[in-house]
């Protein structure tokens, strides 16, 4: 008894010292990163949340009066609703095309390539990193009235005048979206297909399943995680995009994001812009959660 007491008596101050030094070390190591995220994201986001509940009073002015009206106005405004559906529609279409178009390529890269697989994946990663804006600009010149497609068609005599609907249209926006986000789909699909053992496909074939059946009963269910991830990711990033619609969409496709930026920059109505941002963010998270739940619910 006495010896243990003496021992702990001697050890305790030492342990306390070690524990305190440990705590200080942790704080010094982790603290700066927490400060960066806290200062440059959490505080501004909390501020934005507060803004969405106060009243706007003229350009850039606010009155600190608690109100829900920013949210009710946004949710009831038919123009906003129309533009929101438009943005979500474009995003869903682009996401669907990316997943569907990505499947055959991902399948080929995973199951048919051996030595070239890493090179193919490397190329996909490179295209994912190549400047977003340069790719938009590329489509801008390709689809433009003086672009390759139009001058080609005119020279070949297919059309007399350049096709004006190629650029500044929803088509142009979707083409650019697919170009930018297809690499993400391919990567996510290949990484989920990598867990499918190749002998599983052989078994299916041996049991008499044709290629369509093998795909729909084996490959598709087992790579669903990648497909859903790719769809959700593309949907969220494209329907929240404003750079692509503003460069390639012309007046035909006002985006949800451009409304937010207009509220802030052109109209100076911060509360309304803040409310739209949070509604948008909520919808994105709901879609993401819904899709991941759907996957679990299906028991895949």
């Amino acid at each position, binding site marked *: 008894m006495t010896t243990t007491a003496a021992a702990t008596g001697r050890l305790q101050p030492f342990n306390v010292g070690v524990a305190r030094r440990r705590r200080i070390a942790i704080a010094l190591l982790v603290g700066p990163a927490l400060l960066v995220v806290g200062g*440059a994201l959490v505080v501004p986001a909390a501020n934005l949340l507060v803004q969405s509940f106060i009243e706007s009073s003229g350009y850039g002015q606010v009155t600190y009066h608690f109100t829900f009206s920013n949210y009710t106005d946004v949710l009831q405004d038919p123009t906003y609703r129309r533009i929101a559906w438009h943005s979500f529609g474009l995003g869903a279409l682009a996401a669907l095309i990316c997943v569907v178009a990505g499947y055959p390529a991902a399948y080929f890269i995973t199951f048919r390539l051996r030595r070239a697989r890493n090179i193919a994946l490397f190329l996909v990663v490179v295209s994912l990193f190549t400047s977003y804006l340069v790719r938009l*600009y590329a489509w801008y010149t390709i689809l433009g009235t003086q672009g390759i497609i139009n001058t080609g068609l005119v020279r070949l005599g297919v059309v007399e005048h350049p096709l004006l609907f190629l650029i500044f249209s929803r088509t142009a926006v979707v083409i650019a979206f697919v170009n930018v986000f297809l690499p993400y789909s391919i990567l996510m699909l290949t990484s989920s297909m990598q867990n499918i053992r190749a002998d599983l496909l052989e078994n299916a074939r041996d049991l008499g399943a044709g290629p369509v059946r093998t795909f729909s009963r084996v490959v598709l269910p087992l790579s669903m995680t990648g497909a859903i991830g790719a769809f959700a990711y593309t949907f969220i990033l494209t329907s929240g995009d*404003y750079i692509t619609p503003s460069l390639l969409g012309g007046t035909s496709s006002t985006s949800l994001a451009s409304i937010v930026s207009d509220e802030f920059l052109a109209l100076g109505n911060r509360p309304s812009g803040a409310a739209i941002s949070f509604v948008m963010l909520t919808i994105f998270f709901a879609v993401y959660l819904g899709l991941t739940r759907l996957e679990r619910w299906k028991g895949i």
Partner: protein
Amino acid sequence: MARRLRASALLVYTILVFVFLFAPIALVVLFSFNKTASLTFPFHGFSLRWYRAVLESPSYRDAIFASLRVAVISVVVVVVVGTAAGIGVTRYAFRGSRIVRVFLFFPAALPGLFVGIALLSFFVQTQVSLSLWTVTAGHLIYVLPYFFLVVTSRLQRFDYMLEEAARDLGAGPWATFRRVTLPLIAPSLIAGALVVFSLSWDEVFITFFTIGAQNTLPLVIYSTVKQSVDPSVNAISTLLLAGSLVFVFSVRRLAADLQQ
């Protein structure tokens, strides 16, 4: 027979996908060397006139330096702060270390629009005038999660017993870090730094809202294209492209780290 046909159909399809992904960029690079102002075939021959135009234009030159400055500052800050945090959460399994990890990854899940709007509204209210510093603040938030991911996946495999051995041999904490830990994790830090550079160099979404009077390279391209078609945009785009591909030099290291 049918099987072989399907296999070659898949091959052709995959090649077409890669053509779709790379052809637009290839065209921009090609026409940046065009002799004439035309943006379409026939190609009239090589010249460097558009690159000369870019380097002689003060607004393009300033934008290049602005982008470099923002990217380099982001890299330095994120490497220091992110490495420290990575060591903190992997060396000590403290209470809340999981929450810290999630908290530091979380910004990557937010759309750039939201981060940009939150920062803009905050800066306007606190009367911080928009400049390259406000742009840098946005970039830090954007790139920190990626760097943190790279560095923690490396440190997960790091044997902290090596540090203890060094300490037992009498090395102080700083000497231990500089002589033991740093040399071992340096390749991953460099790989992460290159990724951070690429991401920052190319960022438009957050920059769009936090930018002051001085444009960065992507934004100068954006505003030029919005106004008119200027063939020197091909040349400046090619420069932007070159910078955004800096990360390529780190691909092997990254693949090795992230696969663990």
